[in-house]
C-alpha cells in the first residue's frame, strides 16, 4: 500500500559515505548526480536523502534532496540538483563536485510524499495526478519510474511546468514514456515559450488547464502530489482544488524560499 508510516527512518539515521559515480547535465541549471551508497538502502518513491558537506574548519552544511531514481533501479541513487545562484550547497554540486568524490548522505526520509504501486493495494490502481514545477519534478520522477519499473497499470498524469522546453528535466525520457500510451499521460506547461505538442500549454497552471488535464484520466484521482517552489505549489494546489480535487487528497512538498 501507499505506506504512510514506516518511512525507514530507523534504518536510515546513520551518515554514510557515497561516491559520485556519474554526473548528467539535465538542463543548463540542473544536473543529476548518481551516488553509490556504501550501505545501500531500500526506499519508497518520493523519499529524500540528506546530504552533508564539511569545510576544512569543521563547518557543515546540510540539505535535503529528493531521490529521482526508481526504488527498483539497481546501483547508484540519483539526486537532481537545481543550481541556486545564491545557494551554498547547490553551487558546490554544480561547480566543484566531480566523479569519484565522496559525499556524506543519510536516509531515506519522508513518510508522506511517497507512493508505492503495490499490486495488492486496491488503491494502487486508482488514478494519480502529479504536478511538478521545475526541479519539483525530482521526487515525481521516482514515482513515475517506479510505476514504469513495475509495469503498474495505475493511470497517472503528470502536469509538468517549466519556463522553456529546454528547462524540462528528464524531457526525452518523459516524452518516450508518454508515447507508450500505457496509462501515463504527460501535459507540459511552458510559461515563457509556445507549446510544442498538441494538448500542451504556453501559460502557467490554472483551473481550466487542471480540469482539461484531469479529464485525460479515466476516473477522478485518488491522490495528488504537488512539488515545486512555494509560489508554484500554492498556484497548482489552488488550481487542482478549483478543478474539483479535494484538498484532503493533495500532498505537497515545497522547497526554497
Amino acid at each position, binding site marked *: 500500500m501507499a505506506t*504512510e*508510516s514506516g*518511512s*525507514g*527512518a*530507523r534504518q*536510515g*539515521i546513520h551518515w554514510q*559515505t557515497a561516491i559520485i559515480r556519474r554526473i548528467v547535465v539535465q538542463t543548463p541549471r540542473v544536473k543529476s548526480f548518481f551516488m553509490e551508497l556504501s550501505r545501500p538502502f531500500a526506499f519508497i518513491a518520493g523519499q529524500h536523502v540528506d546530504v*552533508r*558537506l*564539511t*569545510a*576544512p574548519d569543521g*563547518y*557543515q*552544511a*546540510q*540539505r*535535503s534532496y529528493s531521490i529521482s531514481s526508481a526504488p527498483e533501479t539497481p546501483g547508484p541513487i540519483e539526486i537532481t540538483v537545481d543550481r541556486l545562484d545564491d545557494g*551554498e550547497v547547490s553551487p*558546490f554540486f554544480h561547480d*566543484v*563536485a566531480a566523479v569519484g*568524490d*565522496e*559525499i*556524506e548522505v543519510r536516509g531515506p*526520509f*519522508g*513518510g*508522506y*510524499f511517497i507512493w508505492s504501486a503495490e499490486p495488492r493495494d486496491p488503491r494502487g490502481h486508482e488514478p494519480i495526478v502529479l504536478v511538478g514545477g521545475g526541479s519539483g519534478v525530482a521526487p515525481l520522477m521516482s514515482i513515475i519510474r517506479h510505476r514504469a519499473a513495475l509495469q503498474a497499470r495505475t493511470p497517472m498524469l503528470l502536469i509538468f511546468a517549466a519556463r522553456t522546453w529546454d528547462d524540462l528535466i528528464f524531457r526525452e525520457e518523459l516524452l518516450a514514456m508518454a508515447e507508450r500510451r500505457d496509462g501515463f499521460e504527460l501535459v507540459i506547461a511552458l510559461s515563457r515559450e509556445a507549446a510544442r505538442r498538441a494538448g500542451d500549454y504556453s501559460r502557467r497552471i490554472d483551473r481550466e488547464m487542471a480540469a482539461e488535464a484531469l479529464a485525460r484520466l479515466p476516473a477522478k484521482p485518488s491522490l495528488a502530489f*504537488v512539488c515545486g517552489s*512555494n509560489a508554484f*505549489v*500554492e498556484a497548482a*494546489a*489552488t488550481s487542482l*482544488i478549483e478543478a474539483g480535487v479535494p*484538498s*484532503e487528497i*493533495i*500532498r*505537497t*512538498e*515545497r522547497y*526554497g*524560499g
Partner: protein
Amino acid sequence: MATRGFTGRPRPPGTGNRVPPGQSVTNDFPVLSATPTQHVRLDEWTFTLKVGPKPVKSWTWEEFNALPQTGFTRDIHCVTKWSKLDTAWRGVLIDDILDDADLEPPTKYTLAHCVGGYSTNVPVADLVGGKAMVALQYEGRPITPDHGGPARLVVPHLYFWKSAKWVNALQFTEQDVAGFWELRGYHMYGDPWREQRFDGD
C-alpha cells in the same frame, strides 16, 4: 571528513552560537507544509482546550483576541535546515490560555490539532512558563494563511514543525502521542541543539 573543495558560506559574525548544528541562516521565510494552504474564516474560527477527548473550553476569534496578548522575539529553526533569527510573534501565551480556562495542566503531554488534519505533540513543560504561544501576528501583521494564519502555535525552541499551522485545539494526553510527522519518522521531541530531526537521532 572534510568534503573536497567545500568551504561554505562565510559565517556571519556573532550568529555562530545562535545557529544549531546543520542549520543555515535565511533572511526569507520559507513555507513548508504537507498539505495545501488552509484558508480559515475568522467567523468560523475557534480554539478548543481539551483534556483527553473532553473539551474544557472554547474561544471564538473575538474571545481569543480579548485574552492577554504578549509579544516575543525568538530565533526559529526548521528541520529542513534553515534558521531565521529574531522573528517577532504576538499572541496568547499558553499560560494565559490555561489561566482563562482555570486549568492546571492535568497531564505532562499535549497534542496540538489543526484545521486540515495536521497534529503534533509537545510536552507541557515546553509550552508553559512563557515558552510558547498561539500566535496571531508575525512582525506586527496578521499571520498570512501560508504561514499558518489566522493562528499558529509557536514553540520556538523546538524544530518548527512543532509550531503547528492553523492550530485549532490543544489536547492534554496521558501519554506522549505521536502527531502527523512524528508518526512518519520525525523525532518525538525535536530539539534543534541536539539535532533531533528524525526518530533515533
